[in-house]
């Protein structure tokens, strides 16, 4: 249904309403109305992250490669404007801004409980208007060096990268998001402008707003700023080194100053095969399968726990993006090989005997209850909506997909994703 210039979609089963508009310059904006909430949230982001370190565009066809960590560096530096610091402008309004860089996204957001539209103006303005100088770029290197060192002392983070380096031999997902002290030393203002001009094109960006706000005001403010910006959509060609279909290493061991040995294990998968709602469905399916295989109510979890092979912290995640895809199981264990052996054995058994419908129904019911509860936070729901919408999937439709998942579909996924030739194990051992 079209209401004014933007479209409005009601989701009665969740009691929520979504507004959306796509602008002629390719920019997309979404607004989730959250009646009765005090907190207001807005986030704007771009399809640009740590893996985008070599690229060409429809305007500049010669590929260039930039120093590792530049997307994250750029995220830090955007907060500095010609005559002011953006953080202080937000602070003067009582708003709370932040930003993050992941493998393939950079996002800027703020939350507030008053002065929303003033803060919203700042957000829409600063991400489009960089101000880099030799001095301010140099100064940031000290701060980021400390951020890099902070991560070096964090075994959760370091362990995750050890796992990624097991999976991928050439792919830039191997690289630290913030880069290294050596790589950031090479960053200068010209490179930053180049990356900004390339990746911060409105056609590469998405905005999500959530809160008890007026849709007319939200969209009119966008129309006055980034929505009416005249810029031709830019075609970006990302040059990402191809990787083998199987993991680079089957197993690796690393030492850290930790109390208990840890492990990370999982399956590599070919990326760039499924898109949009099919991708969403696959993601839901794999997550449900993991709950069935080793969730807290599973036989396997009980067995591992009672044998003292895990101590409660075993978790699983699944990543399915344009350029990389894998699942990851992680936990603490004195005998990672034994844990992994039992997981593989259980998967083989399920492949042979099929899945239990009672377990499937129960896990599905639990997941739906949690989906419903996730609507209770303006900020985290807005953030999750934002992450998904980049893959052409809206979070309400994503939740509705749960009703369409069948046990047959899960059995198909079970045979397709859990391929032992694509399995890898990373062990983190105490010093």
């Amino acid at each position, binding site marked *: 249904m079209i209401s004014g210039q933007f479209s409005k979609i009601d989701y009665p089963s969740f009691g929520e309403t979504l507004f959306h508009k796509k602008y002629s310059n390719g920019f997309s904006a979404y607004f989730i109305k959250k009646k009765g909430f005090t907190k207001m949230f807005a986030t704007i982001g771009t399809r640009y992250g740590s893996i985008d370190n070599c690229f060409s565009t429809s305007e500049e066809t010669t590929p260039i490669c930039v120093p590792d960590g530049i997307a994250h560096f750029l995220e830090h530096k955007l907060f500095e404007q010609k005559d002011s610091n953006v953080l202080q402008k937000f602070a*003067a309004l009582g708003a709370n801004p932040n930003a993050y860089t992941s493998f393939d996204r950079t996002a800027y957001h703020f939350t507030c409980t008053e002065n929303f539209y003033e803060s919203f103006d700042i957000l829409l303005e600063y991400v489009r208007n960089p101000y880099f100088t030799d001095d301010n770029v140099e100064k940031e290197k000290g701060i980021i060096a400390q951020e890099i060192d902070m991560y070096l002392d964090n075994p959760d983070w370091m362990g995750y990268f050890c796992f990624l380096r097991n999976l991928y031999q050439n792919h830039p997902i191997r690289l630290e998001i913030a880069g290294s002290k050596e790589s950031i030393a090479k960053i200068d203002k010209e490179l930053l402008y180049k990356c900004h001009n390339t990746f911060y094109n409105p056609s590469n960006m998405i905005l999500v707003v959530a809160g008890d706000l007026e849709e007319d005001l939200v969209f009119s403010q966008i129309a006055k700023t980034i929505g009416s910006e005249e810029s031709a959509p830019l075609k970006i060609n990302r040059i990402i080194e191809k990787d083998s279909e199987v993991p680079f290493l089957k197993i690796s061991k690393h030492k850290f100053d930790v109390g208990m040995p840890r492990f990370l294990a999982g399956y590599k998968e070919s990326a760039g095969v499924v898109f949009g709602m099919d991708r969403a469905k696959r993601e839901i399916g794999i997550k449900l399968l993991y709950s069935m295989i080793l969730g807290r109510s599973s036989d396997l979890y*009980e067995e591992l726990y009672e044998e003292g092979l895990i101590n409660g912290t075993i978790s699983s995640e699944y990543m399915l993006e344009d350029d990389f895809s894998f699942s990851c199981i992680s936990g603490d264990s004195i005998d990672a090989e034994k844990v992994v052996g039992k997981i593989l054995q259980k998967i083989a058994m399920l492949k042979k005997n099929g899945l239990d419908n009672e377990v499937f129904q129960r896990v599905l019911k639990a997941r739906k209850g949690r989906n419903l509860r996730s609507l209770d936070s303006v900020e985290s729901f807005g953030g999750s909506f934002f992450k998904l919408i980049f893959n052409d999937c809206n979070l309400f439709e994503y939740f509705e997909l749960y009703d369409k998942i069948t046990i047959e579909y899960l059995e198909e996924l079970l045979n397709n994703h859990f391929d032992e030739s694509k399995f890898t194990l990373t062990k983190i051992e105490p010093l």
Partner: protein
Amino acid sequence: MFENNGCRVMLFENKKFKTNSISISMVSELQKETATQNALLLEVLGRGCELFSTSKEISVELEECFGANLASNVDKHGDKQVFGFSVSYPADEFVNANITKRLMTLMLNVIFKPNLREGLFVEDFFNQEKENLRQEIEGLKDDKKDYAHDRLLNCMFEGEPYSLCELGDLDTLEKLTNQDLYRHYKQLLKSVQIVVLLSGRFSNKIVEEFSVNLNDILERDIETQDLGKLALKTPREIFEKTEEFDVTQGKLEIGFTTETLPSSPDFIPLVVTNAIFGGGMQSKLFTVVREQESLAYYAVSAIDKFKGVMFAYAGIDLQHKQKAQELILSQLSKVQNGEISDFEFSASKKSIINSLRALGDSLLAEQSFYFNQLLTKSKLSIEEMISEISEIKIEEVVRVAKKIKPHTVYFMTEKTGVAL
């Protein structure tokens, strides 16, 4: 609020959310003799009860209750150890089922009707949880940023209850037997103060029923005690300690005494002082230590209201300890000398007000705010705090800031070679 027999049942009605939450906490003195036992007890109770004899059966029941999330929590709030269970789940009317009642039954059963064998906890459960707790305590050093803070507390509160870890210690754990733990449990039930927080949508009838059930199950008759007695940390000459660990980055932690508890009229000015000094990106620590001097990625301060102390911490290059320490202390001196810009003053107040206003948007944040009010004997509501902060004068901030004194400086540095 219902108050009887050492139990408080507090209801926070909130119809904005699709979630309900029930939390049952036990509040006892943080003591070396019992801290480990309380932490271990919680884990053993989570393993099974009369109605659901194993963790697996409990997990199945939680999934049947639309993915309810049961968590055990153990924490220290000043010299008190707070431990118990909480469960969050979709409110009944959104799932057309009476799961509130089911989950209340589950919670009471888990805490008060454990799975016993021959008058003791199931031996396997006891042994497994003892080993898991050992692993958890040993894992506390894994995250060096958090661990540096634990080490500061250990130095700053040496010989006091607050230096103890809320999970207990390895020596005590090593010696614990199933008999000891069960004896402790029976004793605890007779005397421990219990606080129940219900947030979301609850009918009066169900709250009343729950309160009666709780009272019946306890089979005791004790006084409901004041939980808000706090021990204020007193100042001393500054003490410095450096320890070596396997780190790349230095972790600097400074503890200050403020001589101000939440029940004091000086508390609100102290909250504003902290926001100006290091609480947020409008603060002096953020602006000077991070943005101007590029010494740190994080440089922040925070108040511990249960002890009347304040902390400042930063992750810095190993070579910059002295410089960072001097810079941090000089920023505090500036606040004490009234060198506070209009921007710093007004943005600091706004930042606190924003956080307070946002509390009402989170069931758990609001719940924990009021629980802390109970433990600190503070009477101010969120609205009253907001109005006090709006009206505060800069002179009050300066006066209260002048009471702040550095007490302990802790630095975690890299390991050097072994000297001969």
